[in-house]
């Protein structure tokens, strides 16, 4: 007699450890004799337990895009020592890229907003921004 395989929901509950004890016993009895379900379970475990390489790649590329000016500045700074005859040129490039990074950074943008609000005399608005920063930082 062929036993019916457990549903996708039951199998996922089993592997996540949220299935009730008596149901676990039934599932394990089935798994002991069903190669297809065992294979499915093993594959699911492989997928969810391994780090997502594509996600890591995406995160790295996002970080690089976000900090491209900082990376450029660091590279120019290093190169200024490697090619000492072009020290000044590389150092200038480093300063420019560093400044660009500082201006582009989120914190710098907020500081500019606070400064402008303060300059206009809108102290309430400046305080609001400051309290928002405090809220996010703590």
């Amino acid at each position, binding site marked *: 007699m062929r036993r019916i395989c457990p549903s*996708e*929901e039951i199998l*996922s509950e089993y592997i*996540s450890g949220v299935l009730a004890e008596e149901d676990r016993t039934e599932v394990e*009895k089935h798994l*002991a004799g069903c190669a297809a379900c065992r294979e499915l379970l093993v594959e*699911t475990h492989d997928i969810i337990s391994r780090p*997502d390489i594509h*996600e890591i790649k995406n995160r790295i590329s996002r970080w690089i895009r976000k900090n491209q000016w900082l990376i450029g500045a660091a590279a120019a700074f290093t190169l200024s020592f490697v090619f000492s005859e072009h020290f000044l040129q590389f150092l200038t490039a480093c300063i420019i890229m560093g400044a660009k990074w500082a201006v582009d950074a989120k914190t710098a943008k907020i500081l500019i907003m606070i400064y402008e609000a303060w300059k206009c005399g809108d102290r309430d608005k400046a305080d609001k921004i400051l309290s928002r920063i405090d809220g996010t930082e703590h």
Partner: protein
Amino acid sequence: MTDEELLQKCIDKDRAAWNEFVRRFSSLVTRSVRYKLNRMDRHLSKNETLDIVQEIFLLIWKKNKLRGVKNTACLKSWLAIVSINLSVNYCRRNVFKTAKNTLSLDENPLAGTSGMPLGFMIPSSKLNTAKTLRSNELSGILDKEISKLGYRQQLVLKLNIYHGKKQKDIAEIMNIPTGTVATLIRRAKDKLRKNLGNALEIE
């Protein structure tokens, strides 16, 4: 938005929540599809893989399959299982499409000539060799002896021997301590050794 809130909104057919769901889990579904295709030795193009991923999400949305997920703790594993199953279905469906471009073993590869069928031209190292018969016989005996064990010992041993899983992985799959897995494997192997004598040596 937490996974639980997202899940509930998707079940209630909230479009914005569904877009967020797709964004949050498309990487997992894509990974599952790629993994299964590799295991099946099917190397599809990037677009075809994307088609399967879209088909999976479309099916989940249309059939409101998320209703079956009762606990968000198992959402990821559920998505992986659904993706694996639907990838297999996709490949089965498309086998007939690709079959038109393949050649049967009973056909003559040089059409129009009176040559021999393709099957006769492929040398086989497996068929009718004494080694294969002996191996089949031994694996039959092993299967029979394993089936005499308790269901937990059977499961652990099969995961270990047939699926090549380490004790740590088996413990994660079954949600039991690694020590318990080690004990189950040891006892199962002891029983098998006793039953099989020295005929089989199990690692």
